[in-house]
């Protein structure tokens, strides 16, 4: 019987953890700035780039996608491999996922402070960034599903089911909620109007 040797992809976990720490600090700092702007409106500095209306969504997006997002990916990439006893399906997909995600965060920071927004809470990022998110997310899903398929442990540990459900659920959320018609590079209109848009988003 041939003994197989393999090792786990730890580099991707390290990268995501580093990103988590860095963006965590940034996101919380931006949140502090937003909070202070509420208490001391003068901190808005009278210019639009630092106004509360733009700083708040930067904070929420940073916490959700930059902080928690990177943390979630780190946790899933670490545990998935070990619980399935299989090395990550594709290292390059993993690298694309990681760097694309960081690019998305940077683009989010620039566009949100510049005032480009869809006005939909937690879906403020405009359509080009939505497309990048879709690509990065699909890389993540492909890596996850690929690793499940090539697993050496027949029994799929329960957490993996939650990871797969997360992938399906967030895909549906992102696609359905972000259906919008672009009219220029950084401006689009949701296909849903007013109240329907709200029902779709919060459903």
């Amino acid at each position, binding site marked *: 019987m041939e003994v197989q*040797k*393999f*090792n*786990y*992809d*730890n*580099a991707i976990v390290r990268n995501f953890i580093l990103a988590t720490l860095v963006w965590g600090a940034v996101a919380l700092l931006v949140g502090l700035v937003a909070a202070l702007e509420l208490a001391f409106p003068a901190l808005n500095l009278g210019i639009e780039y630092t106004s509360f209306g733009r700083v708040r969504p930067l904070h929420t997006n940073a916490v959700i996608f930059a902080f928690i997002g990177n943390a979630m990916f780190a946790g899933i990439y670490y545990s998935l491999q070990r619980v399935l006893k299989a090395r990550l399906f594709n290292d390059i997909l993993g690298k694309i996922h990681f760097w694309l995600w960081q690019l998305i965060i940077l683009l989010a920071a620039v566009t949100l402070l510049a005032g480009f927004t869809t006005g939909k809470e937690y879906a403020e990022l405009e359509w080009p960034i939505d497309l990048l998110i879709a690509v990065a997310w699909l890389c993540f899903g492909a890596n996850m599903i690929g690793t499940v398929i090539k697993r050496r442990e*027949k*029994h*799929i*540990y*329960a957490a993996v089911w939650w990871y*797969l*459900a997360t992938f*399906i*659920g967030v895909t*549906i959320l992102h696609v*359905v909620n972000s259906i919008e018609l672009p009219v220029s590079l950084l401006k689009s209109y949701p296909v*849903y109007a007013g109240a*329907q848009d709200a*029902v*779709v988003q919060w*459903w």
Partner: protein
Amino acid sequence: MNILFVLIGVSLFAALIFLAMFIWAVKSGQYDDNYTPSIRILFDEDEDEDEMKN
């Protein structure tokens, strides 16, 4: 609120996917062993020493 038809439709679609995955899981014997998964965590496995070098 006609949008609800869309939303319920999409949710139904998702539910059907989950149902299909569940049926696959039962068929492929995922739930046949109730004992091993609970003690698997206690096994010491020597992770490859090369791991740190990645």
